[in-house]
């Protein structure tokens, strides 16, 4: 059965259905419907909703709760996510599973509250200090929000790694029909490392400190091995009409929605254009891009930023084809018309 839901509320409902019972957050637009939903719904399912004194406190509550073995989530928007970065680095270092939602907005600084994708670098390249990676999932519809939020909790537990869901106000506010499908249970490793009181066993410790550089290097290499495994196994993207494409547009999230509208129009006009829509921003779906890089004339990356993901596209393409960029920023969303125009510049017969 399908029900009509707002993106932000769908995150909340999906989290509840994934067994999340703890949420710590601090108010910020445009994600407010999510904490509001959980504050309303959690009492019915025995969950704990806590409005923290700041994003810094919230992410450190997540650290404590995840270390105590809970499925736990926090959410915020760009400036708040910046504040959480020290905590996220600790969580990644201590290998704690949790889900962090960024309903991103225009920046830098206080910016605005309109949809933006200018937190891509922060989400995928580190954000906080140290050698670490988040798994970053970028839904492009409310249904995909539901599916990816549920996946996020499993991935977090599977790899003992924080997972970030990244969207924007357009996705968060948009209402679409969704279905909460029965999911097959995946086998997750036992949580035998949590601090729940020793009760006869040896001490468990949640920690990121290692004053011995050889020890810390070993830890970093262990993390690296995990990240390599994730890179190998978890790359996800949607491929649309790429087999005969001359131009492939790479876009995610809200930008990808607009690109899809433009692509349909262009196909009707006979322009051979395809889309690769990354669903995991990290690991970046480089394998798929590599499959097409020798077959197309060019790639066009469309983002709601001045160009961040385009660097990963360039790395994956590896100079085998030209990579162009089109972006709107500061909370502006590109129009299908703009994208159509850009693609036509590149497609055969178009004036480059």
């Amino acid at each position, binding site marked *: 059965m399908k029900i009509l839901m707002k993106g932000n509320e769908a995150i909340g409902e999906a989290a509840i259905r994934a067994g999340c019972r*703890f949420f710590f957050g601090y108010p910020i637009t445009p994600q407010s419907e999510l904490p509001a939903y959980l504050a309303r719904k959690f009492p019915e399912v025995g969950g704990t909703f806590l409005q923290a004194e700041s994003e810094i406190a919230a992410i450190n509550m997540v*650290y*404590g709760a995840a270390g105590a073995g809970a499925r736990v989530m926090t959410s915020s928007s760009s400036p708040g996510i910046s504040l959480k970065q020290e905590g996220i680095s600790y969580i990644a270092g201590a290998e704690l599973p949790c889900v962090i939602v960024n309903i991103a907005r225009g920046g830098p600084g206080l910016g605005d509250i309109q949809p933006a994708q200018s937190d891509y670098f922060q989400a995928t390249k580190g954000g906080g200090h140290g050698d670490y990676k988040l798994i970053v999932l970028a839904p492009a519809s409310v249904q995909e929000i539901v599916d990816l939020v549920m996946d996020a909790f499993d991935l977090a537990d599977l790899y003992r790694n924080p997972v970030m869901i990244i969207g924007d106000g357009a996705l968060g506010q948009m209402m679409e029909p969704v279905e909460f499908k029965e999911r097959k249970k995946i086998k997750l490793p036992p949580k035998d490392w949590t601090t729940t*009181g020793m009760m006869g066993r040896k001490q468990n410790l949640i920690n990121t400190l290692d004053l011995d550089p050889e020890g810390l290097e070993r830890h970093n290499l262990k993390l690296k091995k995990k990240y390599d495994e994730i890179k190998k196994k978890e790359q996800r993207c949607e491929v649309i009409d790429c087999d005969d494409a001359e131009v492939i547009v790479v876009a995610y999230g809200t930008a990808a929605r607009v690109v899809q509208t433009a692509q349909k129009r262009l196909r009707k006009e006979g322009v051979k254009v395809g889309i690769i829509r990354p669903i995991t921003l990290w690991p970046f779906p480089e394998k798929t891009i590599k499959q097409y890089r020798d077959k197309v004339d060019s790639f066009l990356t469309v983002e709601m930023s001045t160009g961040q993901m385009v660097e990963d596209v360039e790395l994956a393409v590896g100079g085998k084809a030209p990579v162009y960029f089109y972006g709107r920023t500061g909370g502006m969303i590109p129009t299908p018309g703009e994208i159509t125009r850009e693609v036509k510049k590149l497609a055969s017969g178009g004036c480059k």
Partner: protein
Amino acid sequence: MKTVFERPKSLQDVKTHYCPGCTHGIVHRLVAEIMDELQIREETIGVCPVGCSVLAYNYFNCDMQQAAHGRAPAVATGIKRVLPDKVVFTYQGDGDLASIGTAEIIHAAARGENITVVFINNAIYGMTGGQMAPTTLVGQKTQTSPYGRDPKSAGYPIKMSEMLATLNGAGYIARVSVHDIKNINRAKRCIKKAFETQINKQGFSMVEVLSTCPTNWGMHPLDALKWLEENMIPCYPLGEYKTPGEVK
């Protein structure tokens, strides 16, 4: 043979890294003795701060989490909300609790978060080599107040116990010292009350322990104890600032 003195089970059998004469060690022992006496060691989760006691997880023989600088009360909140029937304590220095972590401690107290905080006030940043702390006394010389703390530019010492005692969520707040036997015994009674406040679910509890840092004060350990008594206590009066009543 009668055993007259032994290591509490709640302390691990290891050497500590604390400087000779530092009173961190005394407070560790008190907390460990209390865990033994209350028989809560196996159901306790401790949170250590960033500061000289960052390695406290090597000394306390219970489950531990190591928190970011100042965030121990938030981490403890996360643990306690997941495990409301377990005992959760933080152990924090004055830079950690009264400077970078002021928001976290105030709001944990305001929420009546049912945790226990052991707060080491040594009037200085120990671990980073002796910088001015929010609790540094007026006139006290440190690495970053080389001419003595001047209230005109550096303000006045923060009195955390007095401040937190104004909050309804605080169940038990006390300030103690460990500069002599009498006061050590008193400190132990108060820390025990703080844990009992938590066990009885009577809200947030904190004991501020006036402590020495002979290394960064540049004093012989005995002189440091005397300096604490003569200079810190007049600024930071000892006593119970808030009790939940029911706790004996």
